[in-house]
């Protein structure tokens, strides 16, 4: 095992034992493999930095590298996507210790031949290893692997593209709870935040975003490209992403919306334009609509298709013109004959609905009158366009209360 920190600045020899130059940095390639292989070396030869392919490393010792051929390729190094420089990007930088759920600093990295290539196998985060590096000479190069994390259990977040793609890390991250991930992300700096988010599966990332604080989220989105932001916001519940978008500056919001699929963007634009104090501003547009002439089987299929959504506790029934008739619970649908028509299940009490312009306090009144878990929002033509769930209302109310209690303290 070779200490990377000790190796930097050491001589690189040709096959004849003559010194070619000094090691500046080690380049690794992140792919689907757990332990990233060394793809090349950056070596200072005379006064310029050159790239030497990793395949030409013949001997690797803690204090020097010997190459298999003396041919020097004098092209300057340009970083390709998915590569990172171990000294410039990883050593002494913050990394995420996925098992320990914390942000730590890299004291050293250990290289070892493994599976035909030289690879990064471990990350040292101990204070002793850090102190060891302060000493001159060979002490600084001796590996002190007391607190070494397996490379597979860390998320290093800095390379040219901002993302270190290690499949093992990604799967480890996906095991974490969204709330824990949100805490980790809030601990990181802007660039690293974006990198970590982009490592996650979009659906999980959206959950994490929903757990983050408003200010943090706004800062995070500012660091991401419009395309990535658009992708994440599309995966969030429409009312939640509308709330986020509403808080952004107009220019920023437009850049994200224009990167979205047209239909989604249109729906979100509409939601954003609604006043937060009115029903339209807090509703979710995700409702399942069936016609009264549809069969129970059709309605159930629709429910199954949308089972991931929180609004799947029932369907909204409309007439041929799309006007609201009833809301039917999933339980009722399951109990009915699949071939029967939805209209046969319709019965009193018919759902009360509010319009998009109903003030929140009236929505609250409606809720307490009919004791349901949700309320349907209709437009001027009596067509259902969204629902307000009890938890949306709770969010909206607590937010308002805070706004009132903040009173004179302006935080714009």
């Amino acid at each position, binding site marked *: 095992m070779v200490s990377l920190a000790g190796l930097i600045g050491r001589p690189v020899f040709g096959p004849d034992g003559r010194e070619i130059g000094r090691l500046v940095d080690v380049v690794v390639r992140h792919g689907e493999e757990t332990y990233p292989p060394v793809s090349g070396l950056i070596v200072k030869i005379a006064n310029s930095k050159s790239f030497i392919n990793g395949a030409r490393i013949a001997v690797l010792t803690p204090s020097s590298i010997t190459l298999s051929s003396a041919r020097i390729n004098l092209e300057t190094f340009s970083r390709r996507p998915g590569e990172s420089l171990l000294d410039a990007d990883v050593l002494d*930088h913050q990394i995420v210790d996925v098992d320990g759920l914390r942000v730590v600093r890299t004291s050293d990295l250990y290289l070892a031949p493994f599976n035909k290539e030289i690879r990064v196998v471990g990350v040292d985060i101990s204070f002793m290893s850090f102190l060891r590096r302060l000493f001159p000479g060979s002490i600084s190069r001796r590996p002190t692997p007391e607190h070494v994390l397996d490379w597979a259990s860390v998320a290093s977040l800095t390379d040219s593209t901002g993302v270190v793609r290690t499949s093992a890390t990604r799967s480890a991250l996906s095991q974490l709870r969204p709330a824990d991930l949100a805490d980790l992300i809030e601990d*990181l700096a802007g660039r690293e935040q974006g990198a970590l988010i982009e490592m996650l599966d979009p659906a999980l990332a959206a959950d994490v975003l929903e757990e983050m604080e*408003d200010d*943090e989220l706004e800062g995070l989105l500012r660091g991401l490209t419009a395309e990535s932001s658009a992708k994440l916001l599309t995966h969030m519940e429409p009312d939640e992403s509308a709330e986020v978008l509403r808080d952004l500056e107009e220019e920023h919001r437009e850049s994200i919306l224009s990167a979205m699929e047209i239909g989604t963007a249109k729906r979100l634009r509409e939601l954003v334009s609604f006043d937060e104090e009115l029903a339209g501003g807090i509703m979710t547009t995700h409702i399942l609509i069936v016609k009264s002439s549809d069969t129970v089987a059709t309605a159930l299929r629709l429910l199954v298709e949308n089972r991931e959504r929180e609004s799947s506790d029932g369907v909204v029934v409309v007439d041929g013109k799309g006007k609201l008739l009833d809301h039917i619970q999933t339980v009722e649908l399951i109990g009915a004959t699949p071939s029967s028509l939805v209209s046969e299940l319709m019965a009193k009490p018919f759902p009360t609905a509010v319009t998009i312009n109903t003030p929140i306090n009236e929505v609250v009144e409606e809720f307490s009158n009919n004791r349901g878990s949700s309320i349907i929002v209709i437009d001027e033509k009596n067509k259902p366009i969204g629902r307000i769930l009890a938890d949306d209302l709770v969010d909206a109310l607590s937010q308002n209360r805070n706004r009132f209690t903040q009173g004179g303290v302006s935080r714009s």
Partner: protein
Amino acid sequence: MSNITIPSGRKLRIAAFLAVMGPGVIAGLSDDDPAGITTYSQLGAKYGYRMLWVLVISTFALIVFQDLGARIGVVTRQGLIGLVRQKYGARAGSFSAVALILANVGTMTAEFAGVAAAGQLFGISRYVTVPLTGFLISALVLRGTFKKAERVFFLLSAVFISYIVAGFMAHPHWGEALHGMVVPSMPFTRDAVNIATATLGTTLAPWGLAFIQSYAVDKRLTRADLKLLRADVWVGSALTGIIGFFVIVTCAATLNAEHITNITDASQAARALQPLAGTLAKDLFAIGIIGAALLAASILPLSTAYSVGDLTGSPAALDDKFDEAPLFYLTFAAITVVAGGLIMIPGISLIWILISSQVLNAILLLPLLAYMFGIARDKKLMGEFTAGKRALTLYGVIIAIVAVCVLAQFWFIFKL
């Protein structure tokens, strides 16, 4: 959002806290600690109004670099020392940590010296006051009851605002004061250079820079909070300068006019408050000194311990247990014990400690400012907040001024 109430509540508290007593104001008032007051008093007593311009430059430098520190903290989410390690490597990180620790031990010693001097005004020996203070601070900070105590210290140190009243009552020569502020002049003597360097070092103190940055990181302040934080930093820094100005002016109008040009103990410095407080001047001075010393002495070891944690990559907090964060507690203890021990060396001059510790501050400031300069221009770290050409020129000029002072200081040390 499903958990909107909690963050809003937290934000509300931060907003309210920042508005009343933000980190910038704390750092600002702590800058007017015993070392600060003594240095400013000495400047006014010895040189009257003519070296006020040193304070003007120092205050300006303080505003500029505290503002930068706040920005670096918010944008990078890392403390100063951790960033230096990341950007410049393990040795540079350790070097900056050692510089900060040395400067902070020096300043901590000055805080103890302040308490000792105030105690002596009432005839209480430093061998009683210093250990007592060390014990009191450790107990308050480590037991987590610091927040309440902080307010008390803060109020006590606000006694120094009475220098503003005293300044007016002493009927200073405003014309000369204005002249001294804008027309730089000083005798090129070892003593004048010493006091100018100390003024710079006490105003733009290294610990203040590290403190403001780690405060922003620790409280997880975001870009949305930056406006408020910067306002707080500007107010706090300006307050340092304003109080400093009145201390100098008051001393110039009283001590210097009475030909007391070399302050050798606290009772002489306290006489500057006589136009306001008459025979109570001594008491007022003592209360202020003790308040400011305790306020700064509570923050200093904590801020230093935080920076050391930042270097190792495991920023510790007060709610960690000893075996979770041994380094944090050891640093805290070491700073307090070493500083307290230095003060108890028999026969050591308190005034000498007060001034020299601030000269040391200025010397150790130099590498830290240079690192901050490097971080400010780093696009990878600062993103859209990367300093432009004009800002960098400003930082460069200030660093050059500090360098000139330090060089002049060394020139006198080795020449004479």
